[in-house]
């Protein structure tokens, strides 16, 4: 199973892919605290969905893990799993542990 650090790296790779299409002055920082969703988010809707899709694709294609990061389970959590890189990482760890 992927470790928490490996999942975080995978999220950073998705951020790097986004940054490759953004201006040098508009780069998304790759840190656990980086806000992905919500009032402090550094991503707009297009970028956020792109990031989620890239992470899902990597989990699926590169690691054979068929999980969805946007489904009923994510919707019903009291705290959004999309708030920051760290909450997204922890959510993926939780999904993998429950498989």
């Amino acid at each position, binding site marked *: 199973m992927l470790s928490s650090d490996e999942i975080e790296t995978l999220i950073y790779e998705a951020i790097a892919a986004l940054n490759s299409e953004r201006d040098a002055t508009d780069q998304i920082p790759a840190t656990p605290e980086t806000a992905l969703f919500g009032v402090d*988010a550094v991503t*707009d809707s297009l970028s956020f*969905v*792109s990031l989620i899709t890239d992470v899902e694709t990597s989990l699926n294609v590169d690691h054979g893990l068929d999980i969805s990061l*946007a*489904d009923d389970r994510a919707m019903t959590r009291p705290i*959004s799993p999309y708030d920051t890189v760290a909450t997204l990482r922890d959510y993926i760890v939780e999904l993998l542990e429950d498989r």
Partner: protein
Amino acid sequence: MSAFGPEVIHGHHVTLRPLVVADAARTLAWRLSDRTTYLNRGAETVAEQSAWIGSRPRNERNFIIELRSGTPVGMVSLIAIDPANRRAEPARFLIGEPDAVRGIPVAVEAMQLVYGLAFDVLHLQRVYGTVASDNRLMIKWQKSFGMQEEGRLRRHLFLDGRFQDAVCLGLLEEEYRTVALPRMNALIRRP
């Protein structure tokens, strides 16, 4: 009530209300901003934009996206509504006030409301559209919500100073229910 659904469509975060001539100056400013690289060229003046709004055909629904506060933040349309073949094209999707929507899933909910109009109200079987091939984020966004790539029109668009392919995308009614709706719901956290 329009021939094609309710005049106003309410969501949790946004409302879609009809585009009217009084929106000409605001929507022109949005369309002339640097965020519209991938939209087709349109009106250049408020008068032209007013004329364009006033001449929309009956088989289109053109909306202003408003926050629940009433603040206009963007536009979206459902065009080429074809009841005989039960299809239509979501189009002219533009968030004009990105700072006003930060942290609010406006784009996702606006598109969900358009899909709801198409599939739940008008009982269409299919929505479709084209996206410029350079607009990779939008292609990924649409595919993430269930759109399937159905083809490619080579050098179909002259945008941003050069010819680009148009990527043809389509979403069937069952894909809306099994893919688009669950994923959109997950990203639209209720207030």
